[in-house]
C-alpha cells in the first residue's frame, strides 16, 4: 500500500500541483463530464428522429404538398397528430424521469411509478373523479388531475411507510407493497366501474388501458401547469439523488438534507405521475426500461441519467405510440399495451440479472 501519497489541503496547493503536472488524468477520470456534449447531441438526435418519425406515420403518411394546400389536412395535422405526438412526448418524458428519480432514491433498480404502485394510486384517484363526473377545473387545472395526484401521493406514502424500518428501506418489501397497492387500486377501479353508470364505466375502461387521445393543445397547456414545477424539482435534486444512490448515510454526511429531498421526491413524483396517469392511463414500465437503457449507454451518474431519461423517454413513447397507431390495418392499439409488453419482458430480464447480485 502506498502511504507516501498525501491529500493536499486547500485550493492553492492543488492549483500548484495542476500547474506542475498538466497532463490529463488517465482512464480513471469520470467519463461523464467529458462526453457530455457528445452524449447530449446523441440524445437530442434520437429525440428529433423520433419526433419526425411519429409525426410522419399515422392513418395517412404525412404529405407536405397536401399540408400546404388542403385546409382539412392542415387542421387534422395541427389538431390531431401534432398534439398527440407532443402528448406522447410529455408522458414519456414524465415517466422516464420519475423512473430514474425513484430508482436512485430507493436504491432499487426495479423501482418505477408502476411497480411502486404510484400509477395504481393515481388511476384510482382519477377513476373516482371520472365516475363522479368531475369535469370541472380548478384554476385551469382539471379536477381529474388533482384527484390522480392525491391518489398517487397516497400510494407513495403507503408503500414507503410499509417498506421503511428505521433507516432502512427493504427492497423486497418495497416492491411487494407496490404490487399490493396496485392490486387494491385496480380492485377499487373495478368496483367503481360496476357502480358508475354505463357511459362513465366505458370511459374509465378505455382510459385505464393507457391510450393517448388528445384533440388540440388545450389539455396539454393545463397539464404543463402542474408538470413543469414537477420536472423542475426533479432536475434541481438530481445531484442529491446521485449522492443518495450511493447510500443515505454517506449522502447525509456530504451535506444532503435527506428529509427535504425525500419530501421533494414525494411531491414531484406523485404530481408528475398523477397528471400523466390522469391523461394517459397506466402506461407501464416506461419508467423502468428508459433509465436502464440510458445507464447502459451513459453509465451510472444520476445527474446525467435523469435528464437523459427525460429526453429518451419522450422519444421512446412517441415511437411506441406511432407503433400503436399503425400496427393494425384498421383502428389502433392502446400504447399502454405496447409498453407493457416491451417493458414487462425487460423487467423479467432485469429480475433474472438481479438474482445474481442478490440485491433484492
Amino acid at each position, binding site marked *: *500500500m*502506498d*502511504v507516501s*501519497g*498525501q*491529500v*493536499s*489541503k*486547500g*485550493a492553492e496547493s*492543488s*492549483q500548484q*500541483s*495542476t500547474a506542475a503536472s498538466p497532463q*490529463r*488524468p488517465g*482512464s*480513471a*477520470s*469520470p467519463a*461523464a*463530464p467529458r462526453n*457530455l456534449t457528445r452524449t447530449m447531441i446523441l440524445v437530442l438526435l434520437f429525440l428529433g428522429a423520433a419526433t419526425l418519425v411519429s409525426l410522419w406515420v399515422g392513418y395517412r403518411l404525412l404529405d407536405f404538398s397536401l399540408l400546404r394546400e388542403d385546409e382539412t389536412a392542415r387542421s387534422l395535422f395541427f389538431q390531431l397528430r401534432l398534439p398527440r405526438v407532443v402528448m406522447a412526448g410529455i408522458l414519456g418524458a414524465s415517466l422516464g424521469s420519475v423512473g430514474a428519480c425513484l430508482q*436512485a432514491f430507493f*436504491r*432499487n*433498480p426495479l423501482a418505477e411509478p408502476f411497480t411502486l404502485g404510484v400509477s395504481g394510486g393515481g388511476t384510482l384517484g382519477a377513476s373516482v373523479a371520472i365516475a363522479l363526473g368531475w369535469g370541472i377545473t380548478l384554476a385551469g387545472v382539471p379536477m381529474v388531475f388533482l384527484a390522480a395526484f392525491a391518489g398517487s401521493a397516497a400510494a407513495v406514502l403507503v408503500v414507503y411507510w410499509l417498506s421503511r424500518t*428505521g433507516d432502512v428501506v427493504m427492497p423486497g418489501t418495497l416492491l411487494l407493497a407496490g404490487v399490493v397497492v396496485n392490486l387494491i387500486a385496480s380492485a377499487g377501479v373495478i368496483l367503481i366501474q360496476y357502480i358508475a353508470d354505463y357511459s362513465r364505466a366505458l370511459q374509465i375502461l378505455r382510459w385505464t388501458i393507457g391510450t393517448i387521445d388528445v384533440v388540440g393543445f388545450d389539455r396539454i397547456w393545463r397539464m404543463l401547469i402542474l408538470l413543469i414545477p414537477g420536472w423542475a424539482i426533479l432536475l*434541481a435534486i438530481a*445531484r442529491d439523488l*446521485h*449522492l443518495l*444512490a*450511493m*447510500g443515505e*448515510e*454517506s449522502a*447525509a*454526511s*456530504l*451535506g*444532503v*438534507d435527506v428529509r427535504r429531498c425525500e419530501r421533494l421526491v414525494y411531491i414531484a413524483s406523485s404530481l408528475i405521475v398523477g397528471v400523466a396517469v390522469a391523461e394517459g392511463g397506466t402506461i407501464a414500465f416506461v419508467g423502468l426500461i428508459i433509465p436502464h437503457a440510458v*445507464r447502459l449507454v451513459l*453509465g*451510472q*451518474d444520476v*445527474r446525467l441519467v435523469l435528464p437523459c431519461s427525460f429526453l429518451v423517454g419522450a422519444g421512446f413513447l412517441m415511437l411506441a405510440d406511432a407503433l400503436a397507431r399503425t400496427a393494425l390495418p384498421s383502428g389502433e392499439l392502446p400504447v399502454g399495451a405496447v409498453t407493457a409488453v416491451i417493458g414487462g419482458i425487460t423487467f423479467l430480464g432485469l429480475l433474472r440479472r438481479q438474482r445474481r*447480485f442478490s*440485491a433484492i
Partner: protein
Amino acid sequence: MASANSISPAHADALIEARGLRFAYEADRWVVDDVSLKLKHGALAALIGANGSGKSTLIRLLAGLRSANAGEVLFSGQPLNDIPRKRLARSLAYVPQINPMIFPFTAMEVVLTGRSPYTPRFRFENRLDVQQALKALATVGAAHLAPRPVTELSGGERQLVAVARALAQEPECLILDEPAAALDLKHRAALIRILRQLRDRQGMTALMVTHDLQLLDPAFDRVFAIHRGSLLAEGSPGQVLRDEVLCRVYEDPRVRARKLEGRTFVWSGT
C-alpha cells in the same frame, strides 16, 4: 478553499465536544446516556465498547447525522446544528460502517462525490476535483481501483474507497465507523499508518470505532470506552487497556491486556 471555509477558530482547544448527550430510538431506552467528551485538535482517538453499547449511535451524533434528544455537540466551539450542512461536510467527513452498493458506480465516481461540498449544485466536478479524488485514492493505496465498478470490489476494497471519499472532502476531522472490520491484517495496519500520517502532516483529527484492540497501543493518542451508552473510561491507550477496565467494558471477567514489545495485546479466554 478549505481554509477560507474552515469553521474552526484557532482558540477552541477541543475540535469536537459533546455535552451531556442523550439519545433514544424508543422512549426511555437510552442508547446514548449522558455522554460528555472532548476530542482535541489533531488527536487520533478510538471509541471502543461491546456490541450494542451505542458506539455507532454516538459517533452518528458526533458527526451530525442524528440529533440528540438532550445535550449538544460543539464543533470548534460552535453548536453542530447551527453549522450549514455543506460547510460542515467540508470540515467533517464520516465513513459509514457498511456501504451496500446497488448500482455499479465506478470507484472514481464514488470518491468524486467527496468533492460535492465544494461543487455548485448544477456543476460537474472539474479537473482539480478529479485530481483531488485521484490523490485521495492514491493515499489509501487504491488508485488502481479507480475505474472499477464498486459492486465488483471486495468488502475491504470498498472500505478503502469509502475512506478515500472521506479524504476527498479535505476534512479537518474524520469519523470512521469500524473501518478496519473488513480489512485484512496488512491493510488494517496500513490504514492506521495513513491516519497517523494525516495527523502528523496535516493535523487531521480522527475518531474511529473499533473492536480491534491491538491497533490502539501505541498508535492512538486517546481511547474512549463506552458501556451501555455511558462513557466508562477515557485516557491514553495505556490507561484504558487494563484488565480491570476492559473486563467492565466488555462485561467479561476473562479479558486480559498485556504489554509486549511496546504494544498492548488484548484477548479473552476461550
